[in-house]
């Protein structure tokens, strides 16, 4: 087990490095000159631009720039934002917790809703409740997230004045964004749970359990649920990474702090140090989430534990 984890961590390092290379390439190879994140080409002469590039080391060969960047990272230096001079690391450390907070609460919402509605849907398969749950879950994944968010703001903040529409301080500001983000992925999880629960319910061992005289409730909540968790964990893992992506839009709609918002601004402004830093951290999160998923597998599924 420990061996497997160590092996995973080692491949994760490869993946992390690969992510760095990829982002570096994307940001530098795509058409467009990153210098324009700093200067306005309409007001700056080519000579000034060239001088600035030299000063910032942006005229060095890409390979050299990359090596220097990696060495800096190994020293804990992620550089400074080209636009605002703010140290990237500080910027990320300030914003990341907000995004993680949002993601965690959204995941809790979506997993709770997803698993329980999914199980209910499977138990009552082809009944009205099932149809309603299935259609609802489809609707949630069919709505553009930002639209849902704006509608929520208008309803819950402007009209009803129940909840704040923006900000990221305090728990109340978390409710609308995390619900918006959460219900989308709960739709995905409901469908996943329902399908795998239906599969599990048809497994022979369910017959054994019933033959032992167990109540249907015990069969569902103890045995089916635990077995359903195995495939569901993968989906949850994927949802966590999806939510990081979702935060790009959600944080803009709800004016929240977070890495989703800074990275979308940074991408548009070609603020490469920020983009690289954020991608590096989100890659770390991905890797950690995958690791957690793998370990959870081992906890829930004894078949994996032994392998």
């Amino acid at each position, binding site marked *: 087990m420990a061996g497997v984890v160590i092996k995973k961590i080692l491949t994760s390092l490869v*993946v992390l490095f690969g992510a760095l290379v990829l982002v570096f390439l994307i940001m530098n190879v795509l058409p467009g000159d990153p210098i324009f994140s700093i200067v306005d080409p309409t007001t700056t002469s080519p000579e000034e631009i060239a001088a600035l590039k030299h000063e910032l080391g942006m005229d060095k060969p890409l390979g050299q720039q990359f090596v220097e960047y990696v060495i800096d990272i190994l020293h804990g230096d992620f550089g400074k934002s080209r636009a605002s001079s703010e140290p990237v690391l500080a910027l990320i450390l300030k914003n990341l917790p907000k995004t993680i907070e949002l993601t965690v609460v959204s995941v809790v919402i979506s997993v709770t809703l997803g698993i329980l509605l999914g199980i209910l849907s499977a138990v009552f398969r082809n009944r009205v409740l099932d149809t309603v749950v299935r259609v609802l879950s489809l609707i949630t994944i069919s*709505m*553009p997230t930002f639209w849902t968010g*704006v509608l929520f703001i*208008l309803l819950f903040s402007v009209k009803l004045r129940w909840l704040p529409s923006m900000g990221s301080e305090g728990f109340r500001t978390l409710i609308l964004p995390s619900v918006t983000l959460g219900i989308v992925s709960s739709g995905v999880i409901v469908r996943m749970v329902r399908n795998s629960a239906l599969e599990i319910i048809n497994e022979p061992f369910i017959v054994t359990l019933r033959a032992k005289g167990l109540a249907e409730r015990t069969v569902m909540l103890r045995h089916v649920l635990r077995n359903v968790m195995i495939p569901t964990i993968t989906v949850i893992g994927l949802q966590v990474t999806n939510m990081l992506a979702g935060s*790009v839009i959600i944080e803009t709609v709800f004016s929240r702090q977070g890495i989703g918002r800074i990275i979308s601004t940074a991408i548009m402004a070609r603020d490469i140090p920020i983009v690289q830093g954020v991608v590096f951290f989100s890659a770390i999160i*991905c890797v950690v989430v995958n690791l957690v998923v793998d370990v959870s597998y081992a906890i829930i599924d004894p078949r994996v534990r032994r392998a």
Partner: protein
Amino acid sequence: MKKLKLSLSDALAVISGLFIAFILLCAIAPGFVAPYSPTYMNVADLLQAPSLTHLFGTDYFGRDVFSVVVYGSRDSLIIGVASVLTGGIIGGILGALAGFIGGVVDTIFNRFIEILMTIPGILLALAIAAALRPSLFSIVLAISVSSIPQYSRVMRGQVISIKNRPYITVSNSIGTRGAVIFVKHVLLNSWSPFLVMATLGLGSSILVASGLSFLGLGIIKEIPDWGTLLSQGRGYLVVAHWICTFPGLVITAFVLAINIIGDRLRDVIDPK
């Protein structure tokens, strides 16, 4: 009672099919459906609420929202279909080859996909769309590139599962050539789950496109696609909600219909 419930889900599929067919009609022959020109700006009739003359009301240019939505279906569908085709074909082929060849190729492929997966798709799309000139083409490119990992993963998984079926062993023992096995057995049997995924991808592409539009990477064309329409109309939610509401509903309904049909397709292809 039972009969009613069963026909409910069937009815949903039928309604979805009809709706998709209608949208297709809109995309192919918008002039046939739309009562007005989508570019006609009747400045005397600004921000009119929905009525019989303007089914979805009019927008801030005085255009008939219904007509704009009808005409906008074409670009929306083009975005959806083109990015599914591009992403699906590239991702599908990559995944299929990696799965079929296996070994080092597969390992390298897996690492690459893992790396891609650490960068959320929308960020990839954002970076590409922002760096290229915003156009239908760059939006499609951005969405397809960002969707390659998911297609290739599904395809790879499917191919690997097919590769281990007994009939592949039989074909090998017969002496059928590898390329023939790959095309005639493996691909032929892998494409159906892939088709389901592509169908669902059609819906999600349209959603991603609207997200890009929201983030400021929309395209200003003669006739805006739904995503652009929706993200531009959202400023009017309080004053003239219909500008935003109807495109939103149409996107949701269309993606919903696609998802229902996709589910149905899955049931038909893979009855469990």
